[in-house]
């Protein structure tokens, strides 16, 4: 039987050693476990609840568990500080070797920065956006904290092999990032669960032109359209990216010709308008033109979807020599220290500060009600992942999701605009 990427990935990791197909339930061998800020739960709190008197008795492999304090670094409350202290103690006790403690940033970006996920591997994380590792052909799957406890003990976990959906992207990459517009556009057109429980395989003539940054945006947002995996094919771009980060061996996972897809959808990106998701759901999408003129008081670029170099670079390009509109708080948060450093070295931070933007510590804060709260009646346009009611504080505030170019254009104009009005996109 010809296999999809998901079928091959799970067959390769099946403990029973047999080939599996979509729909099968299996127990799989795990290559890596990303445990982020709530590490105290699987390692301690849940372990106690389960009956382990002194917390988790072991981890299955000290070199395959990656603990990152991301969301809680730097700490924003006493509670976070106390949880972090507990995590440090547990990491020490369990002998976990890979621990990013005092480094702020989003765990998923740090996993990429340090080459901790590789093509063909099955890597789980107790965060929904673990799916972003598919950008480098790695089977990244978000699991729950209770699942993580099981993984930490045994290095195994149950899965159901998903059906697969092929998303064919054709067209030309313009000189600004469009990954966010692509996924929002698809969510608007097909609904915010059109890839529900499925494994996405990206294909088409656009794919070789996409940077890893753009691929990570598309893969990360797999979860906003319901997917379990969001895989890119392995190519030269992947190879270069991995080679600059790790020398560890790996074996990419490639679909067989003739593999069976549940659905196939195609998009010609050259025909796609700039879009935004209106409050309060990801799939509530319309072309920018329909909401143009809506005033905004806050604009944000950041998150595991769009806090990467190319997202910040486009903002700097839009604002170059100009000022953020009066009355707008434009907040940018690089996804990790490495990304931040890259932006600083490229002169982006200097230029953004001159334009009146705020550049804040890497991390998840801007994506959550932690950094940059909204008050009743305020509106925010953001490149982060979610626009649910209350996601930025007030239940009476409006959040629009958009690509970094549209966000930067709005920050400049003080209202939502078609980016072409303020930026020469050629």
């Amino acid at each position, binding site marked *: 039987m010809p296999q999809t990427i998901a079928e091959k990935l799970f067959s390769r990791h099946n403990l029973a050693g047999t080939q599996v197909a979509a729909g099968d*339930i299996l*127990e799989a061998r795990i290559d890596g476990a990303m445990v982020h800020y709530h590490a105290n739960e699987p390692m301690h709190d*849940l*372990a106690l*609840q*389960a*009956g*382990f008197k002194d917390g988790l*008795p072991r981890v299955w492999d000290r070199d395959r568990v990656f603990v990152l304090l991301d969301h809680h670094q730097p700490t924003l409350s006493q*509670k976070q500080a106390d949880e972090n202290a507990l995590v440090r103690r547990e990491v020490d006790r369990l002998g976990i070797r890979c621990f990013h403690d005092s480094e702020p940033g989003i765990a998923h970006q740090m996993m990429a920065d340090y080459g901790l996920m590789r093509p063909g591997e099955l890597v789980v994380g*107790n*965060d*929904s956006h673990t799916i972003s590792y598919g950008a480098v052909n790695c089977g990244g799957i*978000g*699991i*729950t*904290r*209770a*699942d993580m*406890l*099981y993984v930490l*003990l*045994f290095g195994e976990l*149950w899965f159901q092999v998903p059906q697969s959906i092929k998303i064919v992207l054709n067209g030309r990459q313009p000189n600004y990032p469009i990954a966010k517009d692509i996924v929002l556009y698809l969510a608007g057109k097909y609904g*915010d*669960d059109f890839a*529900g*429980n499925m494994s996405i395989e990206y294909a088409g003539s656009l794919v070789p032109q996409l940077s890893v940054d753009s691929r990570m945006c598309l893969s990360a947002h797999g*979860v*906003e359209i*319901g997917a*379990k995996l969001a895989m890119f094919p392995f190519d030269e771009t992947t190879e270069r990216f991995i080679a600059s980060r790790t020398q560890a061996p790996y074996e990419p996972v490639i679909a067989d010709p003739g593999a069976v897809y549940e659905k196939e959808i195609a998009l010609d990106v050259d025909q796609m308008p700039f879009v935004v998701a209106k409050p309060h*759901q990801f*799939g509530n999408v319309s072309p920018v033109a329909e909401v143009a003129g809506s005033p905004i008081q806050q604009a944000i670029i950041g998150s595991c979807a769009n806090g990467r170099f190319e997202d910040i670079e486009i903002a700097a390009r839009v604002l170059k020599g100009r000022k953020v509109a009066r009355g707008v708080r434009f907040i940018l948060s690089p996804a990790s220290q490495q990304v931040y450093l890259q932006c600083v070295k490229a002169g982006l931070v200097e230029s953004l500060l001159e334009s009146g933007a705020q550049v804040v510590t890497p991390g998840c804060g801007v994506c*959550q*009600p*932690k950094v940059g709260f909204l008050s009743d009646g305020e509106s925010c346009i953001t490149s982060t992942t*979610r626009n*649910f*009611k*209350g*996601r930025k504080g007030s*239940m009476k505030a409006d959040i629009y999701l958009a690509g970094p170019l549209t966000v930067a254009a709005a920050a400049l104009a003080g209202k939502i605009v078609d980016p072409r009005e303020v930026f020469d996109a050629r």
Partner: protein
Amino acid sequence: MHANLQTAVRGRVWKFGDSIETDAINPYYRYPTMEELKLHTMEAYRPEFPKEVKPGDILVAGRNFGCGSSRPGLVLREVGIVAIIAESVARLFLRNSIARAIPIFMAPGITGIVEDGQLLEVDYPNRIVRSPASGASVELRAFPPLIEEIFAAGGLPEYAFQRYTREVRGS
């Protein structure tokens, strides 16, 4: 109360729409403790829910229930919800509910057979959900044996504890 797949339940229905997200179910950013969460769960959609929900109630929802983050819906069990039945459930919410032994079912057609406030019977042993008012029903699919074992153990952490204890004792 400890959820149990193998007992039929009958309760009053709270009915919700599509794509109800974890930020609404579990708004822990604003309400970090379980006690606070219980006072605010689902209020983004129905402000009266946390005030009026009673132990034994059943939650019915449309497509994509529990989309969003990997946060669990334990608070729903804490306020007394004994079963969740939706047209479809987001995968992490499903995983979470299984891992914490919260009875959750995907039953296409469910929103068509029951109205808010009516009674509903959820009978997993007989693989059926029934509306006593109209007599209409939809079928429940059987979980694979592994999942039933996880439920029987009281959740995945408990299942892990049993396996670990067995293996350590056996070696």
